[in-house]
């Protein structure tokens, strides 16, 4: 085990965490502002990836695809909010879970009808191909760009929430919905905008990750589960919590997969150690979530004090 390998794995963990942040930021924002549990967030991620792959395939330009992916996810988000979600704000969480679960099934089969059952081709743009030398580590240029994208979005989101009028309304909506409606803010439009913003972030994550993963029906669900883990750890409704939670999950998951099998290999047969290590590594983030729930039931950075 060399220093270069450890550093590379740390970078991998950070990159994975930042992509999780893009997913969980939208999820936590929607929950924080509207009190809505949106299981269909993973489907918006899938829509972003499919549209990016389709447009990039037609035009040969990844960046056009990326923009199409974000736009399509945002549009789908706004449409879903207006047609379905709007009716659910006053209902309890079980109704919301049921309705948004139905949306997962509808969107997945819809995408399969349009694009077919086989995965789509989407490749890394030419300028971001290959590797780059960072000190002692050879690192994939595209993954490095993903880290850059993730950080830029995080900064942009912080500026939006902290510095703009929309941000003030979002924060006000988080702490007291009735009051900001009474103050004359168009709460319906605000909800649609927040939902579309969350959807756009999911679409961005899907399109970016789609270039190095399989663009297939159902690709959003595994990420959705991780995103829920992230926001439970970080504190539901908190963007800062989502950032910290995402980085924790990303780094702990990656380092666990890397280190645990080695740990077991020191006192077990290699094959067995790999099996046990891999099994335990896949549980690690859920153990972390359980610990957080025991000691900080509202998460690390609870949104409402």
């Amino acid at each position: 085990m060399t220093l270069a390998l450890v550093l590379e794995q740390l970078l991998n963990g950070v990159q994975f965490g930042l992509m999780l942040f893009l997913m969980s930021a939208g999820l936590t924002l929607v929950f924080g502002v509207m009190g809505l549990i949106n299981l269909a967030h993973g489907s918006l991620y899938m829509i972003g990836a499919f549209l990016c792959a389709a447009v990039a395939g037609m035009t040969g330009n990844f960046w056009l695809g990326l923009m199409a992916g974000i736009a399509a996810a945002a549009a789908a988000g706004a449409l879903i909010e207006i047609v379905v979600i709007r009716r659910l704000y006053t209902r309890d969480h079980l109704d919301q879970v049921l309705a948004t679960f139905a949306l997962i099934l509808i969107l997945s089969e819809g995408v399969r009808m349009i694009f077919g059952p086989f995965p789509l081709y989407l490749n890394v743009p030419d300028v971001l191909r290959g590797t780059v030398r960072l000190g002692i580590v050879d690192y994939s240029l595209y993954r490095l760009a993903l880290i850059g994208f993730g950080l830029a979005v995080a900064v942009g989101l912080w500026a939006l929430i902290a510095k703009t009028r929309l941000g003030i309304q979002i924060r006000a909506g988080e702490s007291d919905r009735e009051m900001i409606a009474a103050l004359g803010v168009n709460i319906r439009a605000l909800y649609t905008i927040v939902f579309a913003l969350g959807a756009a972030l999911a679409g961005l994550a899907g399109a970016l990750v789609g270039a190095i993963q399989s663009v297939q029906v159902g690709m959003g669900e595994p990420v959705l589960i991780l995103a829920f883990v992230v926001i439970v750890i970080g504190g539901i409704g908190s963007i800062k919590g989502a950032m910290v939670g995402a980085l924790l999950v990303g780094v702990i998951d990656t380092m666990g997969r890397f280190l645990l099998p080695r740990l077991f290999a020191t006192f077990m047969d290699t094959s067995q150690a790999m099996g046990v290590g891999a099994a335990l590594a896949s549980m690690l983030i859920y153990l972390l979530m359980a610990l957080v729930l025991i000691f900080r039931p509202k998460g690390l950075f609870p949104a409402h004090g």
Partner: protein
Amino acid sequence: MKTLRTTALAALTVGAMVSTAQAETVTVGMITTLSGGGAGLGVDVRDGFQLALEMAGEHSIRLVVEDDAQRPELAVQIAERMIQSERADILTGIIWSNLAMAVVPSTVAQDIFYISPNAGPSALAGANCHPNYFNAAWQNDMLHEAAGQHANVLGYENTFIMAPNYPAGTDALTGFKRYYEGELAGELFTQVGQTDYAAEIAEIRASGADSVFIFLPGGMGISFMRQYEQSGVDLPIVSAGFSFDQDVLPAMGSAALGVINTSQWSPDLDNAANEAFVSAFQQAYDRLPSLYASQGFDTANLILSALSSADISDSDAFRDALRAADFASVRGDFSFASNHHPVQTVYVREVVEVDGVLTNRIIGTAFEEHRDVHGENCNM
């Protein structure tokens, strides 16, 4: 008006008579994966199967297809319904080994035939083999054994091996190691459905391996190959055909070019049945068939061949007719071992680009008349 009614009545009566005559039809229930991430495999098996029925001009088979969504409990329910309500004589179609383990034992125990077009878990080939269970494709280990054998031929001495942590993944690594003679640079289990392989690729880079063996079917393989291509690691990959066939190659793109993989079938296999199959499939569905499509096609033809010489109501005669495997398989000649799993040639293929389309080409033979090792635990 009255004549019209009489005519209609007459037509109905004739229709009723025809349907009585067709009561002799054989019902085949196909349980396969048609939705979700694994849908590509099930769609290919179904399309291959239907194509065989159409090409044979066969109307005595009633095919009932249902989607299992890759969920074992759903597959069990569908199997029950197909046996009870649809009165199915034969079940087929399951892609995934865990679903096969849930459905096959109870199906064959009810005196229904099950003919697998894909999943071949070791338990069903060994101690739990059954006279009514046939596998028309392979036993799970088979193609991985061929990959291990060919790694020796290629002179690999320090291979890094990797598969998802589930029964078929364990079978894959066991199968590879059964024939591979070199050292292992590393051995890793990944999660089923894993999408990010950065950690594993870093391990491969640091391991000092001279080659990599992977078993990552469906989307897992696509994700791995995309990331592998971007990682700057360029060790040669050897694999079984599952991770490099027509269902995933278009999505993998150039990353897959040149990968050596093993399979019992290839689109360029030189026999008349295969030529007819590949061109008919392309004409019917406007895409190249995958090995899964070839397996669906062979499964249908196996059933048709047995039905032509025996009546399904006579189980013993029908079983003997299946065992004879008397049809022109697109993989070329094969026979059934005593555990009802194929004894067949396993080829070595290379991923190539033909007219802008990625596909496979045969470059050699790993095994001839290869049979699985589990048959010796099967007493029937």
